[in-house]
Every structure is written in C-alpha cells, then in structure tokens.
C-alpha cells in the first residue's frame, strides 16, 4: 500500500518536471535555453519516474534494467544536446541576450 502511494507520488513529481521542461521548450527564447530546459526535465523527471516504477518491480533485475534505461536516456540526451548546440553555434543562430 505504501509502495503504491510512493509510486504515484514519485511518478507525479516526475511528470511535473516533464511539464516544466515542455513549458521551457515552448516559451524559452532560443535554442540553447530550450535545450537546457529539455535536458533538465529528461534527467530528473525520468529519474523520478524510474524511481517510482522501481518500487513496483518484482526483482532486482528489473530495477537494474530501469536504471539502465535512465542512464541511457541521460547519455543520449546530453550527447544530442551537445551536438545540436554545436551545430546551432556553427550555423550562427542568434543567442538570446537579456
């Protein structure tokens, strides 16, 4: 019972981070700040969702697989953010200044 409540709380918190990231994607002024918002949402949001799901897992193997998914998404997100921002810099996309 307690694990179910914890799962729901953690998943909802993760979804809140995803919502924040999506809001950042829609509202931030340029590519770099949007990437910043997206990667933060991916890392922490997915981490919370994975933590919530890990409580429901039947075995440690499944927890390990969930952690692996989280690590891979973080790796992919970070690498792709680097590549996109490098390409945006090369193309000379305007950087937002206050």
């Amino acid at each position, binding site marked *: 019972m307690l694990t179910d409540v914890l799962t729901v709380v953690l998943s909802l918190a993760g979804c809140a981070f995803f919502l924040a990231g999506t809001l950042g994607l829609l509202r931030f002024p340029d590519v770099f700040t949007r990437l910043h918002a997206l990667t933060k949402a991916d890392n922490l949001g997915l981490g919370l969702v994975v933590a919530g799901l890990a409580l429901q897992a039947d075995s440690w193997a499944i927890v390990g697989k969930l952690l692996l998914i989280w690590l*891979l998404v973080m*790796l*992919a997100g970070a*690498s792709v953010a*680097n*590549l996109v921002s*490098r390409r945006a810099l090369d193309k000379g996309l305007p950087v937002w200044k206050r």
Partner: protein
Amino acid sequence: METMTGLTGLFDVFLSAGLLWLAWQALASTDLFRAIVLFISFGLLMALAWARLGAPDIALAEAAIGAGLTGALLLSALARLPRDVPAGDAGCRTAFVVRVLAWLATMGLASTLAWVVFHLQPVAPGPGNAVIEQLEASGVGNPVTAVLLNFRGYDTLLEMAVLLLALLGVWSLGVEAEQQVTGADPVLDGLARLLLPLLILVAAYLLWVGAHAPGGAFQAGSVLGAAGVLLLLAGWRLRAAMSSAWMRAVLVAGPAAFVAMAVTTLLIEGRLLEFPQAQAGMLIFVLEACATLSIGATLAALYLGGIPQAEDDA
C-alpha cells in the same frame, strides 16, 4: 482489456486523440523537417498504443523500426534533397474539385471502416486459440514468436525476401551518396564507441529472450540496424566492410537460411517448414540468429542508400 473504466479509459482517449492530432499536424505541416519530426513523435506514441493494446512485441518493433529507423531514413533523404527543390506548399496547388472529391471518397471509406469495426461479428473462433493450444509443440514459449517462426514461417521467409528485394532495388538506383563527414566529432565518436558494445549485447539479449518473452529476431535485428546507422553517422569508415563479400554473405544469410530450412523440411517431411517437435526450439533459434544478422545488415545498408563503394574505387 475490459470495458473502458475511469482513468485508463481517459488515458486511452487522450492517446488516441494525440495520435490523430500528431498525424494531422505531420501531414499538414508546411515545413518538411517539422513534418518528419512530428512523424517520429507519432511513431513513439504508436509504441505506447501498442503497449496499451497488450502487444509488447509490436511496441518494441514500432519504436525501433517504425519511429527510429524510418525517421532516420526520412531525415537522411530530406538532407539529400537539393536545396533548390521546392518543398511543396502542403497541397495548396491541388484543384479544389480534386480536394472535394478526395475528401468525399476518404470520408466514405472511413465511415465504412468504422461501421465494420463496430459490426464485425466473429463467425467462428479464430485460430488464436489453436495457437495457445499448440504452443507447447512449437518449441518456444512466446506465442508471437511461435507464429512468426513456426506456424507462419512461410510468411517470414517471404518477408526476408522482401527486405532483400528492397535492398536490391535501392542498390539498382545508384551509388551511395557522398558522405559529408564534417570532421571527427568527439562527442558523436565517443557515443558510438560507448553504445556499440551495449547495442550488440541488447540485440543478443532480445534474440535470446524472444523465445519466452517479448522480443525476437526483428526487434534484435532492428537494434543491430540502429547500431549500423549510428556508426555511419559517427563517420566510421565502413566502406571497405560494407562493400566486401562478407557483407553480402551476411545480407543473404537470413533468406538463405529460411530457404535451406524450407527445402530440407520439404525433402525430409514432405511438408514445407514443418519442424520436428523435438528440434523445433533449436531450429527456430538458428533461423532467428541468421535473420537477426541479416535484418541488421539490410537496415544499415538501406540507410546508406546506394551501392557501397570500396576504398579504391572512389
């Protein structure tokens, strides 16, 4: 799935609406890049829908092939379209009469299909129950794998042939495009080096686990194909490897294994692709292994988009 209740029903409604909205946006967008990105998101939502429909095998295949590899193919083709080719203005130039007629025809077809969905009554129980009953005899524990590799192995043989034919079609259209290697990018290179062993491991795991859990040859092959695409994107010099005889042997290995198995069973048992019950599990695994290698190589070669050129030909 029982009758829709509460939150899960609401989730299904949102997911279906999201699918339709994404498809509409992807097809109606004036910017081609945006259309392709929306299509990739549509593919990922489709994977969610498959999971909701109780089809994890399809979800794996859709996420890897339908969203991932198709998206990569589309983006690569978009990048190769010459800059001065007009991107099309989303059908605004089509005559109004044609659009009205098309709309009427589509609405007629869609209404007919929707009526069919609601009123189709199964006349007799389908072969689904027979699959469950004969699952023990098929040699594997996953009913989808049993259908793909044992009960309907003939369909899979033809599918391997279709893959090979598509590749031959692509090869017959010309040489691979110029690879724009914009210098060794350390991040992409490091990512490729880090992910390649992991991708091979995951493919092997999916191949092995497909016998008794969601997975199988197509999902494993698509992971290998994704590894090949990643290496090509990271600028690895794969030309010597991809134009070699080894590559062609691997490409043909899948269909050849199926054909060999078909001929063998036809000669020994007198019936096409009927496995002896005792060796069915092992034979299925051998077929799946050959199919995995072949599918991975074919998908990577399809992404290359032309005949691979050897180093000394360039």
